[in-house]
């Protein structure tokens, strides 16, 4: 049952034919884990808290740095040096005091990830590196947790909604991590805040659809976003027969931690 305050707070989504009371109740009971409270994680967390997700787990080992502020919209200049999980919690509590925030000021690794993910209904990948993405996606596959994968760099973004046993998995697209030292990341090639904002908002939207069952999720499709040309593209995507994770003869049977060095920007 929603109380009177909640009916007012969520009134704009309650009056939506496609959303409504039942979806709101599901949302209030749901538990979502957001890994990364940075460029993608900020909008994801903000919108999910505002919409009334019951419990939000926030994983981030990092502290707020000045170069984060151009895109990580949960963190303010006054927060420099604070743990991102603390800064995020403060803002989210102010947006919606109803939401329970669980903080994990650590890196996910093969020893802690299962215990943390096990507590949640849906996982949102908002990290900034490939080793963590492979670890999270493998773990969600083994634990049968829906995973909303979003990533961005430069002016580009990509989005996938992965439902274990139903849709292709992350490794059906990216069977193995990129070669050591070749792939650029945000810190070396840069990123526009609007790109992480766009992808993060879409991840939050996909999460509430997975939780409530409304609409059609992106499952089985890949969305790519080119912010410079302003193009969204949808790529048809199927399970890979010889996928190392979900294929007929999987080679990845337990969690693995990759070490990949990023390409460093060279100034000429």
């Amino acid at each position, binding site marked *: 049952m929603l109380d009177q305050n909640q009916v007012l707070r969520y009134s704009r989504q309650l009056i939506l034919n496609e959303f409504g009371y039942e979806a709101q109740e599901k949302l209030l009971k749901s538990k979502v884990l957001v890994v990364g409270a*940075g460029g993608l994680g900020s909008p994801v967390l903000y919108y999910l808290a505002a919409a009334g997700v019951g419990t939000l787990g926030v994983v981030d080992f990092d502290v707020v740095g000045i170069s984060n502020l151009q895109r990580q919209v949960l963190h303010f200049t006054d927060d420099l040096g604070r743990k991102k999980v603390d800064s995020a919690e403060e803002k989210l509590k102010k947006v919606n005091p109803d939401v329970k925030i669980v903080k994990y000021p650590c890196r996910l690794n093969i020893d802690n990830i299962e215990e943390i993910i096990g507590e949640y209904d849906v996982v949102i990948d908002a990290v*900034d590196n*490939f080793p963590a993405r492979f670890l999270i996606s493998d773990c969600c596959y083994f634990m049968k947790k829906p995973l909303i994968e979003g990533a961005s760099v430069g002016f580009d973004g990509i989005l996938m909604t992965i439902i274990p046993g139903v849709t292709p998995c992350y490794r059906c*697209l*990216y*069977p193995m991590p990129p070669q050591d030292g070749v792939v650029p990341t*945000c810190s070396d090639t840069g990123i526009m805040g609007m790109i992480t904002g766009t992808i993060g908002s879409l991840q939050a939207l996909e999460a509430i659809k997975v939780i409530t069952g409304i609409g059609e999720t992106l499952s089985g499709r890949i969305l790519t976003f080119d912010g410079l040309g302003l193009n969204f593209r949808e790529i048809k995507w199927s399970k890979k027969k010889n996928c190392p994770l979900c294929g007929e003869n999987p080679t990845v049977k337990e969690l693995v931690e990759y070490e990949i060095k990023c390409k460093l920007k060279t100034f000429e």
Partner: protein
Amino acid sequence: MKLKVNGKEELVDDGLTILGLLEKKGIKPMLVVVEHNFEVPERENWGNIKLAESDNLEIVKFIGGG
């Protein structure tokens, strides 16, 4: 022959391989994955897979940042 690459039609020489197409487009193979007719072939085979008329290709960058 005509191919569809990331949704756009492109005219290329007959007998071109996936690797050849990437080279022609100036794309470093290790920065992307390629979907060929809705399947993701092994990277090791890109040099052997000859493209055919009206093949569908999606060249997807490795994007991992956030």
